[in-house]
């Protein structure tokens, strides 16, 4: 378990690539106390709206408050679950349909903690981090996304 949890940079510009996910996984292979990784990836759907199919989401955030909230969520997860590692990345700017905007990655000696932490983190992020999403339609319109 990490003893100090540095405030890490969460936001990245544009989509999160599968290669970035692969490099994150590979960087944990030297941590031989880890037995289970659990990963969540949020991908942009081509939902049908009044203005046509969604072609992407433009993300903005109240960045200072969001980074602070991410930090608090991380600290809470480290205290609730037996975790070896935890990484969260979220896109800002335009993420086209089919691409990834959220990458949550937890590692633990055992699977149960990894499952529970993954769900906890995703739910907390969706409910409490001030991130805003403008769903762009092909015809030029947009609607503001709202998490349920």
């Amino acid at each position, binding site marked *: 378990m990490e003893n100090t949890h540095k405030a890490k940079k969460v936001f990245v510009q544009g989509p999160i690539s599968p290669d970035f996910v692969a490099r994150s996984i590979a960087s944990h292979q030297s941590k031989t106390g880890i037995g289970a990784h659990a990963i969540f990836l*949020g991908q942009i759907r081509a939902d049908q709206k009044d203005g046509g199919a969604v072609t992407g989401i433009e*993300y903005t955030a*109240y960045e200072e408050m969001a980074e602070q909230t991410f930090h608090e969520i991380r600290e809470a997860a480290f205290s609730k679950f037996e975790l070896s590692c935890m990484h969260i990345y979220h896109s800002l700017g335009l993420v086209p349909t089919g691409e990834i905007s959220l990458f949550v990655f937890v590692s633990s000696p055992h699977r149960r903690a990894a499952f529970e932490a993954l769900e906890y983190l995703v739910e907390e992020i969706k409910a409490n*981090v*001030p991130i*805003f*999403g403008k769903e762009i339609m092909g015809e030029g319109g947009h609607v*503001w996304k*709202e*998490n349920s």
Partner: protein
Amino acid sequence: MSFHVKYYGMLAEIAGMSDEVWNADASLTVGKFRSQILERYPAMRDKKFKIAVNQKIAEDFVPIETPAEIALLPPFAGG
């Protein structure tokens, strides 16, 4: 007194700007500030939003004391 107000998402669209300086009487609460906002931007009346004072979501009874950074936050959409 005066303080800084930030608008996000659809609220920035309605305000037509992403931030402005707000001038008000002393002894303002979050609830009173909300009323002033809705008066200046009537189109925000049918929008859900939370108000953060210095990066913490604040209930209506919370007093606003300068210096303060106030943010109007529409529904979250992370993920």
